[in-house]
């Protein structure tokens, strides 16, 4: 018999140390075998809580969101905003247009901004404007590489730009 008390039922046979990380806060619980099994520690662990869940829960109380008819649906996949609130998952690329204003607020909260500044993607059959956007981004990257004296990377970027530039 161990002398460690189960945090859940108070029995003195705590054998499982559960370390949980919720919102980057670590907490340790000592549990007896029975309580641990009840919490499902034998099987797949529950996904940890993460900021999105909290934010979505808060959003549920937000009058601005409630004013939005719960019946709004994504025209492509049929996802309602309520579905999103419950699962934290969007249904399809079109959802990002359908729920753009909400998502902008959410993304600001989760990521600190809404504007992607990383890789610029060019679809398999790009239009001229897409090509120009991509070239702009690559030129900016080339400048950064040169500034930081990463010449190997700069050479790669130069070649990539040449391959995309109209002859």
């Amino acid at each position, binding site marked *: 018999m161990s002398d460690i008390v189960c945090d859940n039922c108070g029995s003195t046979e705590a054998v499982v140390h559960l370390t949980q*990380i919720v919102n980057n806060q670590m907490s340790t619980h000592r549990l007896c075998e029975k309580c641990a099994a009840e919490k499902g520690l034998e*099987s797949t662990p529950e996904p*940890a809580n993460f900021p999105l869940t909290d934010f979505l829960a808060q959003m549920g109380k937000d009058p601005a969101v409630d004013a939005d008819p719960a019946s709004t649906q994504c025209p492509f996949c049929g996802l309602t905003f309520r579905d999103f609130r419950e699962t934290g998952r969007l249904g*399809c*690329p079109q959802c990002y247009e359908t729920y753009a204003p909400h998502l902008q607020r959410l993304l600001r909260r989760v*990521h600190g901004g*809404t504007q*992607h500044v990383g890789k610029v993607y060019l679809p398999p059959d790009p239009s001229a404007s897409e090509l120009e956007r991509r070239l702009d981004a690559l030129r900016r990257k080339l400048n950064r590489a040169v500034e930081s004296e990463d010449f190997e990377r700069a050479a790669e970027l130069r070649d990539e730009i040449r391959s995309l530039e109209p002859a």
Partner: protein
Amino acid sequence: MNDLPAIPDHGLSWLEASGDHADIVLSTRVRLARNLQGHAFGPRARVNDRESVLRKFRECAAKAEFLQGGTLLEMPSLTPRSRKILLERRLVTRDLLGDPQSGPVRGAAVHVSGSAPVSVMVNEEDHIRAQSLLSGLRIEQAWRLVDRLDEELGRELPFAYHHEFGFLTSCPTNVGSGLRASVFMHLPGLVLTKEIAKVLQGLGQVGLTFRGLYGEGSEVVGNFFQVSNQTTLGKTEEDLVDHLDKMVRQVIQYEMHARQVLLRDAQGVTEDKIWRAYGLLRYARTLSFEEFMNLLSGVRLGLSLKLLPGLRVYTLNKMMIFTQPAHLEEAAGRDLSSAESDAHRAAYVRRVLAAEGEVSRGDRPSDEGPPSDRF
């Protein structure tokens, strides 16, 4: 292995204990989440969406230079044990394996490259999850690899991309770059000196997060932590990767300092813990996975502190993988009860440690370095 014959190097090159700080950092992973235009994301995708995504990926993989000589494994056609082996080798996620009762969905697959340490999960939460997995601390290199793979995939597959939000993902926490870089670290010094909470809290303040052995929601066992970037939008991939690299190097410094403190202030106790851990692993007749991991942590620390000469980091890394339940069952050629599994685990560990030879007595901390042939 019955139906995983074709995986090049069995997807285990990340165990080789090469790369920077291999005694503290087991592996580096960088993954990119991508989705295809015109299809619902994983959780809402229908069978025909998933089949269409898999078909397009298959066509693309045939052309992509980076995926040559690889193998595409469709989850539903694998045995449950083979699927678990892939999970234990960190080539797939629990999500790809689907519900424990009903199994993986149609279209769920993983492609393991034959020419580079990269793999692609198809029809997980996102249509495409491309990853590179390297031994030791090599974030920049891992990013370059997966970036090249992404370029090849993107030339053939029409990715869902938004001028403001970037690469669109099922979960808004991945949108933008879709990049999650994570470093799998062993931090016993910080745990034993009780500095770990402070360090982890600090990571949170600089936009990083940490998880246990199997990613999101999993338990921290054996003092192993996965440190990764929390946000994916609003920074370039290079900045995300560079920031993680800098912070991880800082954590390594803290860890090395903590280990020096242990040696300075508690040498006797530390050595005792390490030798007890070694002794138990060397002779125990049953070991649960959790107990094994905790003992392994002690031995790994001893090796890193040069208190257990004669052992290799590679051996310890390999043991971590081959002592997991599905690997033990595969070796036994049958299903094992939990008690049998514990006995098989202990037997395997005894055998590996015996083959590695007796480590020196260690009446005093040895001055010898670790063996030069670390791999």
